[in-house]
């Protein structure tokens, strides 16, 4: 590919009337667009020289077809000049800062000079001269006699949006233009303006450029009627008034009428440029909808800048629903065959791949790994169809290009919105599969923040060799297991992976040969260790042994599992909960494998493997571990139903008693409060103290109830297993289901809102009791009373509102952060600079360490090295 031209810089400036005329291909004089035959009228707004939009026609100016011809400007000669709204404020400032007679800046030569020097210096340093320019205007406006011609300056009032009054006498744009023309170039520079590209008189329009038809295409409705663009409508208005103005002036109409028409012309030009100026009623379409002006086209999220220029549309992409497939590797993505047939990769035919290419072409578009198009050496693209595939295959020769279909092993980018961090787009290997959803391994859900409740994801196929290399080296899933946010794994086992692994490794699970082999069947591991022992003469293996088979040799690790309760004296290896995990030389000696071991965001084992054995090993481990876990959980059978929340009658009674006691205590607190016997906590009012104490009391009761329930739900309860292993849910969730839901809150307080002095009409006024303010005694299992249900809904609603507000706020924060920091880069000298070369940091992060290569933020794990060299394990 020839290296494309690079735009080096873009200069901004104002268009002078001469320039507008020069770039114009025609003067527009008639407001009509098409004649009766449907042909565009010459010198009308749809003049064929302005470009083409109708298919089949050619541009009269450049001869290009629609799509090729960029369009060409025309112009309207305005009968009288009008002010450009965007510059209205600046026009006033300049009017007040220059002499009404000689047009010079109202500052003495020496002051002017010093300002000019400062501006030049700042410009040279690449800094803004805003402050200086501001003070120039501030000083100049105060002057009442021109220092050059001694003319007395008059006060100029500005009336929104575009009229200027000098001593009760209205200044017409023509007068303003005359004055501006007298300002010398040198004085213009002091206003911070570019005298060559932005003369102030150019802010008063005498000629209006007419944008090409390509920017305002008309659409043909079903009825065959043409519907014009808003801009065209606006231009029609301008031309009409312009004509009327001219006729009236030539007819010698009275000044009053001329002025009215002038104002009307100003209005139309203003609303052509910006239809949201304050003080101007927006121009409307016949239907009453405000017209979309030039400014509105640029502005805002869907505007030209953010919507069309910063956000690009692409080809070679696909989108569909995602669903899980635990048998895929984490670095794979299952692509529906329909999608694979549509997406293509261009192959350059060379003598070396000629045969391969021929085979693709021969298979055609309907026979999966086939090809959809060939591009001949002369650049003609030919669609492959069943009728011509054999023929094309024979014709194929080096120099041609073949668009072959996506097949297994291709690299594609996979993405889920919102793309909040770089792990939201990762490269996967294609695995073409039947059915219509994208399939991913559930272990890669955390970085995408995906679930399978109907989420859709996008897939992009990189088209060049460079792009594919980059995707493979930098964006592969395994390269992104470690998050640059904190230097730990962000991909890891979730839900059933963790439950399964936990059930396999906790305590002593014994497995016979068949089971053991079956569990390992889907993993890379093909051999079993020596049996742990014999039972009835048959060998058996432990779950820990099976898991150990997946660990790389030489891995040493000691940590505490999720269920560790931080006992005062740690029994270490003897822990009866199996919460002390020891791995020696790749053998799990004790402890259960849970979320802290292989989970996303936490996975200790995973983390160690990546950092010591590399990402490929880590990917293999994850693939094997998740498969093993899924097999295990399928073997055991793992379910949760409503009867898993059952607790014995005596426990229910205990819970009932606890809650009754708590209510009693709350009652006593209220009595004490009403009797004035309650002491307030330091820095709190009496009311607040009471609230806090009640909350405390009820919280305590809920916890006690929860403890009792937890006590009766043993480790054979699936929900308990999930909570303890960290797979899903918490003991709190469980106790809410089984024992007591507890206090509902809005804004961190008990529920206070509702009727005057009470939350619901069911309560007495001023009732401070537990149930009057949202304490839910029931459990979810038992069911909530209507009143409890209502309070619960209040708490729930707050949560929903909170989430909605939060997403918008944090989205905006993210946008601002990205915008502020996106240009920063580490240079070869190790400094962090922004694009202008401004140094932001001399060494990145004070130590030059990449957080994604660090060990949870630390540059080097010194202890690990010492342990490796000397064998000394250091703690504390």
């Amino acid at each position, binding site marked *: 590919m020839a290296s494309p031209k690079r735009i080096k810089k873009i200069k901004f400036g104002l268009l002078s009337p001469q320039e507008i005329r020069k770039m114009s291909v025609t003067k527009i004089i008639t407001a009509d667009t098409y004649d009766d035959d449907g042909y565009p009228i010459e010198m009308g707004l749809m003049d064929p020289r302005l470009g083409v939009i109708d298919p089949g026609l050619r541009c009269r100016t450049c001869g290009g077809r629609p799509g090729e011809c960029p369009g060409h400007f025309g112009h309207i000669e305005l009968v009288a000049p009008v002010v450009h709204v965007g510059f209205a404020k600046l026009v006033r400032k300049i009017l007040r800062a220059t002499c009404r007679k000689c047009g010079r800046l109202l500052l003495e030569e020496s002051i002017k000079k010093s300002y000019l020097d400062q501006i030049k210096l700042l410009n040279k340093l690449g800094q803004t001269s805003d402050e200086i320019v501001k003070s120039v205007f501030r000083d100049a406006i105060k002057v009442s006699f021109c220092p050059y011609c001694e003319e007395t300056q008059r006060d100029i009032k500005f009336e929104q949006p575009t009229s200027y009054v000098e001593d009760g006498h209205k200044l017409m744009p023509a007068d303003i233009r005359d004055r501006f023309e007298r300002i010398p170039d040198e004085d213009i520079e002091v206003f911070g303006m570019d005298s060559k590209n932005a003369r102030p008189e150019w802010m008063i329009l005498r000629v209006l450029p007419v944008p090409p038809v390509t920017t305002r295409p008309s659409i043909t409705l079903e009825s065959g009627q043409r519907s014009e663009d808003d801009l065209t409508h606006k231009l029609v208005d301008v031309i009409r008034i312009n004509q009327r103005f001219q006729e009236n002036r030539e007819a010698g109409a009275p000044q009053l009428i001329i002025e009215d028409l002038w104002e009307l012309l100003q209005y139309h030009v203003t609303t052509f440029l910006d239809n949201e100026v304050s003080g101007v009623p927006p121009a409307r379409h016949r239907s009453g909808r405000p017209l979309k002006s030039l400014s509105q086209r640029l502005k805002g999220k869907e505007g030209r800048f953010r919507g069309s220029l910063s956000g690009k549309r692409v080809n070679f992409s696909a989108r569909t629903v995602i669903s899980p497939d635990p048998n895929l590797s984490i670095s794979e993505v299952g692509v529906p065959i329909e999608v694979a047939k549509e997406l293509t990769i261009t192959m350059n035919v060379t003598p070396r791949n000629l045969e391969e290419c021929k085979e693709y072409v021969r298979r055609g578009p309907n026979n999966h790994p086939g090809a959809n198009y060939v591009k001949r050496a002369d650049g003609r693209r030919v669609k492959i169809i069943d009728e011509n595939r054999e023929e094309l295959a024979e014709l194929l020769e080096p120099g041609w290009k073949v668009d072959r279909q996506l097949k297994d092993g291709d690299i594609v980018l996979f993405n889920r919105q919102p793309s909040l961090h770089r792990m939201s787009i990762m490269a996967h290997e294609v695995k073409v599969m039947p059915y219509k959803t994208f399939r991913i391994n559930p272990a890669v859900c955390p970085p995408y923040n995906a679930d399978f409740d109907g989420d859709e994801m996008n897939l992009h196929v990189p088209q060049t060799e460079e792009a594919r290399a980059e995707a493979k080296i930098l964006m592969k899933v395994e390269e992104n297991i470690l998050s640059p946010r904190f230097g730990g794994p962000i991909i890891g086992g979730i839900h059933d992976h963790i439950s399964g692994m936990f059930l396999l490794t906790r305590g002593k699970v014994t497995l016979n040969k068949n089971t053991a082999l079956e569990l390992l069947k889907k993993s890379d591991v093909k051999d079993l260790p020596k049996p742990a022992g014999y039972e009835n003469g048959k060998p058996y293996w432990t779950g820990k042994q099976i898991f150990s088979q997946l660990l790389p040799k030489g891995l040493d690790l000691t940590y505490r599992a999720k269920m560790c309760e931080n006992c005062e004296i740690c029994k270490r290896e003897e822990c009866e909960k199996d919460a002390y995990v020891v791995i020696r030389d790749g053998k799990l000696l004790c402890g259960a494998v849970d979320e802290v071991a292989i989970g996303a965001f936490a996975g200790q084992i995973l983390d160690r493997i990546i950092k010591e054995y590399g990402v490929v090993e880590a990917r293999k481990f994850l693939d094997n571990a998740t498969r093993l876990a899924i097999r295990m959980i399928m073997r055991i059978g793992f379910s949760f139903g409503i009867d898993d929340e059952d607790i014995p009658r005596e426990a229910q009674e205990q819970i009932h008693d606890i809650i009754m006691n708590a209510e009693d205590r709350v009652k006593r607190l209220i009595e004490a409060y009403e009797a004035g016997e309650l002491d307030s*906590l330091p820095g709190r009012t009496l009311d607040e103290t009471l609230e806090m104490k009640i909350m405390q009391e009820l919280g305590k009761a809920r916890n006690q109830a929860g403890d009792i329930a937890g006590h009766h739900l043993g480790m054979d309860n699936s929900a308990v297993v999930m909570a303890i292993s960290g797979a899903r849910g918490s003991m709190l969730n469980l106790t809410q289901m089984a024992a007591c839901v507890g206090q509902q809150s809005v804004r961190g307080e008990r529920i206070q809102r509702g009727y005057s002095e009470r939350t619901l009409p069911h309560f007495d006024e001023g009732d401070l009791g537990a149930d009057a303010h949202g304490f839910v005694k029931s459990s979810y299992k038992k069911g909530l009373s209507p009143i409890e249900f209502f309070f619960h809904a209040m708490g729930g609603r707050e949560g929903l509102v909170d989430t909605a507000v939060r997403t918008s706020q944090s989205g905006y924060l993210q946008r601002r952060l990205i915008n502020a920091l996106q240009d920063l880069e580490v240079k070869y000298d190790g400094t962090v600079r922004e694009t202008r070369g401004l140094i932001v940091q001399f060494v990145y992060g004070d130590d030059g360490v990449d957080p994604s290569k660090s060990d949870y933020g630390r540059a080097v794990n010194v202890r690990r090295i010492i342990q490796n060299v000397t064998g000394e394990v250091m703690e504390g």
Partner: protein
Amino acid sequence: MAKKDTVEALMKRGVGSKTAETLCNAGFTLSKLRNASVEDLVEAGISSTNANRVMKKIGKPIEKAKEVSPELIDSKLRGLPLPPSIIDELQRDLKRIKLTETQLDKILQMTVAAYEKAKVEPCEAVGIVAAQSIGEPGTQMTMRTFHYAGVAEISITLGLPRLIEILDARRVPSTPMMTIRLEDEIKSDRDKVRKLAWEIEAASPLDVGDLAIDLAEMRIMIDLSEKALSQRKIAPEEVAQRIRDEMGVDVSLDGLKLIIRPEQSSYRELLQLVEKIRGVTLKGIEGIRRIVIRKEDGEYVLYTEGSALKKILQCKGVDPIRVKTNNINEIADVLGIEAARNSIISEAMETLREQGLEVDMRHIMLVADMMTCDGEVKQIGRHGVAGEKASVLSRAAFEVTVNHLLEAAIRGYVDELSGVTENVIVGQPIQLGTGDVEPVYRGG
């Protein structure tokens, strides 16, 4: 046969079967093992940890190879191309264990190698990574504005609102707060601390008495409390004088009763006066609205609602080095831009940590440096960093599109197309990361 014996002998001494076998296969016998070094074993294909374990069990009690002295460690550490934090860690940990010189050298060599491996690569787009790393957890943060952190009595803004506040570089945070630690002489004396607190806390007339509006007579009455006055060491006359000075109204004192009459006796005037009286500071530092004293690690610490850094630093008895405030702009004014930078880092880190979100310090450092790199605290956003960017297109694409374009035309700005947004807009590769380098064909 001999091999099998050795394996058994080794296993008897507590060596794992696999290790034992590898050792024998490498030709080791018991006697040979006794004379071997750890390195020899490693060469035979055993992990270093294991080798050490084997040596402990079999090798002759590792001959006390000359231990390195702390001085040698220090001298070796000097001049290593490592950041201070690692040097410190090495210094601390190496002195706790016994080492031979070869081991020391090996450790240092491995550390330097690991450090080199962990360094950022040139062309890395660290800015975007930092922005994402801070922005992404934002979605997981709570909106709950008020939270009682640390001190139950003082509520402070936390979570996402606080993070936004820090990055917005607001002049005054929504809940300014200070933590004041005191000098050694008084820090453990409860009475003295209490006294100091009374001195610092701003007292309004309402703090020392009860206010009542007498509508019949069109006057305001304040019943001063003797206890409150003596606690704060204010004389009733002083209160009267202060109100007179501040507001220029007629104040008369009758015992402990303050009677204030507005100049014009209108109801509105009266109510306005009450509001004004509320705002009068009789004593203490303006802005310090409330103080809570807490005992922490054997010393009394003052937590204040409101912040007035400059004045607090000048207070007698306050340990100026250990005073903290959460008002970043105030820190910039009083202590300078470097202090403000550190404060942005610590405040942002604290906010994130409190939410249980782990974010690497380096990302926040970069944001803080970006906000403070030209000497004043700039906001992340339109009125700060993003608004001062060199590129017109980039600014236009961010916010207030039209105004930026109009201004660019007037000023004759030139967009050099060096940043990310500009190049995306014109459709060319960006000059960051892999866009900043090109593959070169090395012939031959």
